[in-house]
């Protein structure tokens, strides 16, 4: 039983998607300052707001994702994280001005203005992306002795993904593409990842059902 559950998704698939989620988190975060600066400027406090909100959102995501992983972990929920994060990132692309303008008009202090803008723009997609890490750990872990090792491996992979996302965005992407083009790419990458997880999850279940039937037939 525990064997079949561990094969919900192959380990290397979980590792790959953890990399992608880490990459996308930092890509969006690095673009955050670019998105906020027309309204709140480029002062240090704008970066402070963005980093604070990303940290709090990720913390909430870890908490919720960890809790969800205890209740029948499955590929569908895992895929929904990716697709959900993509969908909730869309307002950043489509309605950024509509969201920031009223905040700019009501709050004079750019520190709190940028803080509230960060909440409305980034909190939900980032916390959903945060759910991916603990859930991935659960999908990779087979036994208790393994859990520390797997958690370490996953943090390693997703953090390397974050590093790559930070470097790629700040060194190259902003030089080659527009902000929204980069964001659309992240959205497409997340949705594609979600779909791939669904497909592989489906294939794995089919395989394990077949195996179980085969086993049962043999027993009979």
């Amino acid at each position, binding site marked *: 039983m525990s064997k079949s559950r561990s094969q919900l998704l192959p380990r290397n698939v979980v590792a790959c998607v953890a990399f992608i989620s880490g990459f996308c988190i930092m890509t969006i975060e690095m673009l955050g300052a670019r998105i906020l*600066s*027309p309204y709140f*400027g*480029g*002062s240090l406090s704008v970066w402070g707001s963005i980093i604070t909100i990303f940290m709090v959102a990720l913390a909430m995501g870890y908490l919720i994702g960890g809790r969800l992983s205890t209740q029948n972990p499955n590929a569908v929920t895992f895929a929904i994280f990716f697709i959900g994060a993509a969908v909730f990132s869309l307002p950043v692309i489509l309605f950024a001005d509509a969201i920031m303008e009223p905040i700019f008009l009501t709050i004079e202090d750019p520190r709190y203005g940028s803080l509230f803008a960060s909440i409305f723009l980034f909190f939900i997609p980032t916390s959903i992306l945060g759910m991916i890490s603990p859930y991935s750990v659960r999908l990779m872990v087979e036994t208790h002795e393994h859990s520390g090792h797997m958690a370490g491996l996953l943090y390693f992979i997703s953090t390397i993904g974050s590093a790559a996302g930070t470097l790629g965005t700040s060194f190259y992407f902003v*030089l080659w593409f*527009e902000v929204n083009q980069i964001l659309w790419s992240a959205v497409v990458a997340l949705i594609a990842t979600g779909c791939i997880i669904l497909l592989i999850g489906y294939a794995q279940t089919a395989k394990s059902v077949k195996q179980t039937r085969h086993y049962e037939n043999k027993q009979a």
Partner: protein
Amino acid sequence: MKTNRLNANLLISLALMCFITLSSFPVKGETIHEERSKYRDITVTQVKNRRCLLFNVHRGDRNQTCVLIDDPDRLVFDYTRMSFAGLLLEPEPERILIIGLGGGSIPLTFSDLLPNTRIDVVEIDEAVVNVAKEFFFFRETENMKVTIDDGRPFIKRAAIRNETYDYIVLDAFSGDYIPEHMLTREFLEEVKRILSPNGVLVANTFSTSRLYDHESVTYQRVFNEFYNFRLQTSGNRIIITQLGSLPPRGELVAEARRIAKSLEKYGIPVLDYPRRLSTRVDWDMSRRILTDQYSPGNLLRDK
């Protein structure tokens, strides 16, 4: 005895090494003030009567501003003097906006020249304001106020309040980090909104690197035409433009003659300026314009 000799030799060579390192350092003269602010390292140096403000010295930055302490009215740098060329287009501004304080020589000169004109200065770094006051004779007056803020939101709010300025100086780009959100088409559109019908925009910008091309096409897109003002002796390029079409050169010459006397004590050679204001396109027009969506100024500067 021998070890002493050895030590002495060692000391001498060490001292020599120190001397060589120090003398190759870009700053000469005595450092009279050093401060690390939220945004940069601020250094004030003085050689004889010449006192200079420098940002991020260890990265080899140039002087931001210098004053002659026994003749503080005289402007030391070409680019500071060039910032007054806008007076040829708008000789009697009633409201002036200056983004970026530095050592404060531009606002001080305006305040001295036009004591009844209202001057708003916007500076992001409070430490720069304090240093300008303490070491560079800057002071706020009844008509001259400094706001600690980022230039872009300040201009956005001024536009919402329907305020206009007759003379706008953008001087936020000197130094080590370029505020990329103040290079974009959208930003220039906002500046346009607070420019009075006869008002003039004077922007101290870049004369080298690919950024020169990108910036030129962006200004061209927003303002159609502008004066490109460069001097061989200065690494800066000043963009001067206004809402309508630019005046004919004859008018500029006449205006220069009229105001030359009043600018003499600041050392501004305004008679020489009209023939240096060029409208010739000398940049690569195929470059992408800078927008809020695409503005990698800090990356383009190194290209």
